[in-house]
């Protein structure tokens, strides 16, 4: 079996296996898996509206996935995407609602504010790692909590004691009547193009630039990089800053596209944490992140239809979705299995 065939077969078999095990769970719990999967399918691809909403859901996942993948390529594990995304969300909502500017300035400025806020949130763990060798996993986890409560406090402060920020001005909005009409008045917005542009930016930085060469080199072997005269600490900080900026932009998707403001949060959004899985599913490559984000985004959004259309409780739905993702993530097992099979055939 050639490598190419294996590469295509692995994700397909993984998804099928996930669906089968998910079906067993539904059967055992007394629900109809066929109806369940039809509902899931319709939830994702059923009509133009569903497709629009699915794509809308994918955008922040792409950016969160890119953030994790980018740091990972430099040998850093950025668990703080969640926090970076939240401060980005707030920054975009604040700039979008506070200032009155022409769109050509306002929208880029709001996006930039989100990226800058995320970058700042990434800078702190980067600095601590570079100067005091504090492990970035610990710092980024803690920064998530700090972000959550800081953002809540800021929402309260800017809204004069309220629980949500003002709606952003249309000049800062990513909303698009055109895309909305195209998808039967879904909330699909231009954010997906921002996300895809960032995929290209990531690819460009990593594969084409001197900075990317250094970042990857430090990620693979910091000793050899230092020998070659690279500034390892600078690269660690830079990597966290760029990673944080992507995460911040992920927040901007929610602020400037989906919601138009930010509401006091009782807990994490989950997008940042799912970003870790998205990046790993995509093998930390920019293109792979699109695949991982599409899987996550469509399953997450499509699953919303399962309780309504097939009467399957949300809890079971969560398990089924988790199983599908689990099997995709276990692609390695399937790869090994396929290779064994091929070997046996050869032996005969």
């Amino acid at each position, binding site marked *: 079996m050639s490598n190419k065939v294996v590469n295509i077969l692995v994700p397909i078999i993984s998804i099928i296996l996930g669906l089968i095990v998910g079906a067993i769970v539904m059967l055992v719990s007394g629900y109809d898996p066929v109806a369940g999967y039809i509902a899931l399918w319709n939830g994702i691809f059923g009509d133009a509206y569903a497709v629009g909403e699915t794509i809308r859901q994918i955008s922040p996942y792409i950016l969160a996935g890119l953030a994790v993948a980018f740091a990972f390529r430099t040998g850093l594990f950025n668990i703080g995407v969640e926090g970076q995304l939240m401060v980005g969300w707030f920054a975009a909502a604040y700039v979008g609602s506070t200032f009155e500017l022409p769109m050509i300035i306002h929208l880029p400025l709001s996006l930039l504010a989100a990226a800058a806020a995320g970058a700042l949130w990434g800078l702190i763990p980067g600095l601590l790692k570079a100067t005091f060798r504090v492990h970035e996993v610990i710092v980024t986890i803690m920064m998530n909590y700090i972000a959550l409560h800081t953002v809540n406090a800021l929402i309260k402060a800017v809204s004069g004691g309220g629980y949500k920020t003002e709606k952003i001005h249309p000049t800062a909005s990513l909303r698009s009547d055109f895309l909305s009409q195209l998808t039967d008045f879904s909330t699909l917005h231009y954010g997906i193009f921002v996300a895809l542009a960032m995929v290209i930016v990531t690819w460009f930085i990593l594969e084409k*630039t001197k900075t990317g*060469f250094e970042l990857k080199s430090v990620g*693979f072997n910091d000793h050899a990089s*230092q*020998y070659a*005269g690279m500034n390892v600490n600078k690269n660690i900080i830079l990597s966290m800053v760029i990673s944080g900026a992507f995460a911040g932009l992920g927040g901007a998707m929610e602020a400037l596209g989906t919601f138009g403001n930010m509401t006091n949060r009782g807990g994490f959004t989950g997008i940042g944490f799912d970003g870790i899985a998205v990046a790993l599913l995509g093998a930390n490559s920019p293109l792979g992140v699109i695949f991982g984000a599409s899987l996550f985004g469509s399953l997450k959004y499509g699953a919303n239809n399962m309780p309504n259309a097939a009467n399957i409780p949300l809890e079971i739905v969560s398990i089924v979705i988790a199983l599908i993702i689990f099997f995709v993530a276990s692609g390695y097992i399937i790869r090994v299995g396929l290779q064994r099979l091929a070997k046996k055939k050869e032996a005969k």
Partner: protein
Amino acid sequence: MEYVIEMLNISKQFGNFFANDDITLQLRQGEIHALLGENGAGKSTLMNVLFGLYQPEKGEIRVKGKKVNISNPNVANELGIGMVHQHFMLVENLTVTENIILGSEPTKMGTVNIKDAAKKVAEISKLYGLNVDPYAKIEDISVGMQQRVEILKTLYRGAEILIFDEPTASLTPQEIDELIAIMKKLIAEGKSIILITHKLQEIMDVSDRVTVIRKGKGIGTVITSETDPEELATLMVGRQVTFKTEKGPAYPKEEVLHVENLVVVDNRGIEKVKGLNLTIRSGEIVGLAGIDGNGQSELIEAITGLRKVKSGTISINGKDITGKKPRAITESGVGHIPQDRHKHGLVLDFSVGYNSALQEYYHMPYSKNGIMNYKVISAHAKEIIEEFDVRTQGEHELARALSGGNQQKLIIGREVKRDPDLLIAALPTRGLDVGAIEFIHKRLIEQRDKGKAVFLISFELDEVMNVSDRIAVIHDGQIIDTVTPSETSEQELGLLMAGHSREKFVTDEKNSVMKEGDDNVQ
């Protein structure tokens, strides 16, 4: 004569590539049987077949005359085959005993019975003269000691046949002597040994018979006492090899490296280089001879800017570079072949091409305005591959996939191509076969003849004697003497390295505190 192991007509194929092609190896009871071949000749593949990691396509294996099917390493263990790996498989922060029992922990009422295990370890250690402390932590003991732990591990599991994979690659000369004694003791106790190596002297010293393989093919088996290193080298490489590196006289000119009263401390803050003075001129090779741990690493790291200088000065071509950043030093004309090529010399997960540009990627023509030019880098890599005979599938192959010798050629190509005024070569031939060693020595001499200064650091006395024009002997952080190879002997060098001065008086009172610095020599 009884054979304990027979590997008959073994063939192992990877894709279209024959790693082993019809190789036969027969191990007699109680002999040390050397397996000789260049890097990449297929020695490790053959041993991995014996150890059950690979299944051969053709051929059969017999243990004590009985045909066996070694489907995995556990089967090999049960058959009494144990392997002492080149890269030790030890957990650094566990103790010797814990490492030995790892995977088959003896239990007593549900808890691991360390005490009994440690007792058994101590017994075996005593029987074979291994002198290992069962409770010592791996990270605290020397490399030679760690290797003994590996040997103990196989003995503890009842191995009768021991495979040693390049056992001397990372040992000091003294440790090598001790290892040879241990191997002889093992034989005296009835074990049989397969010794994988490409060091001819070792084979002459310890083995009874030698099986030679070349490019995957079995060349034959010879009796050690009936052969000599020249014949073995010819069998291994397939052509005549010169041992004595040929070179004309040196014509040293102006000073390139000048080190004055250099003091450098190690990570623990202990002075490792203690007021060292050294000068290297263009057109000469200066060898640095010394026992490992006498300040060599710290000296190189200080010269290349990787370690802070406590006091003293270092200058290149008359320009003071003390305390400068590595890149500034590189740019002032220093090339460096680092001691540890995996850790410092290469980014193993980068391609050969990327690695070829590791020192120069940041300037024209390799990159411009922050954008890399991978076309130029590929072309540059191809030049190095061609010129330095790096055997690789191409510049896109990962450096990890190259054999040690070819990785080293890549590094040397990269550094030499930059045309540095001073080339520092730290243990440049460690772990390489005679063919590659010959190649590297020629390149170093070529640099010298082009009027460059070459600084060669080596633990191998014959390398220092062969290649250098002058030999500086380092002991306890100081150059205690400088000798000319033609006017000295290995014995004299050995004495100097151990701290005895040629003149019968102690020139420096600092030598009297020598003992403190020696605490790491076990």
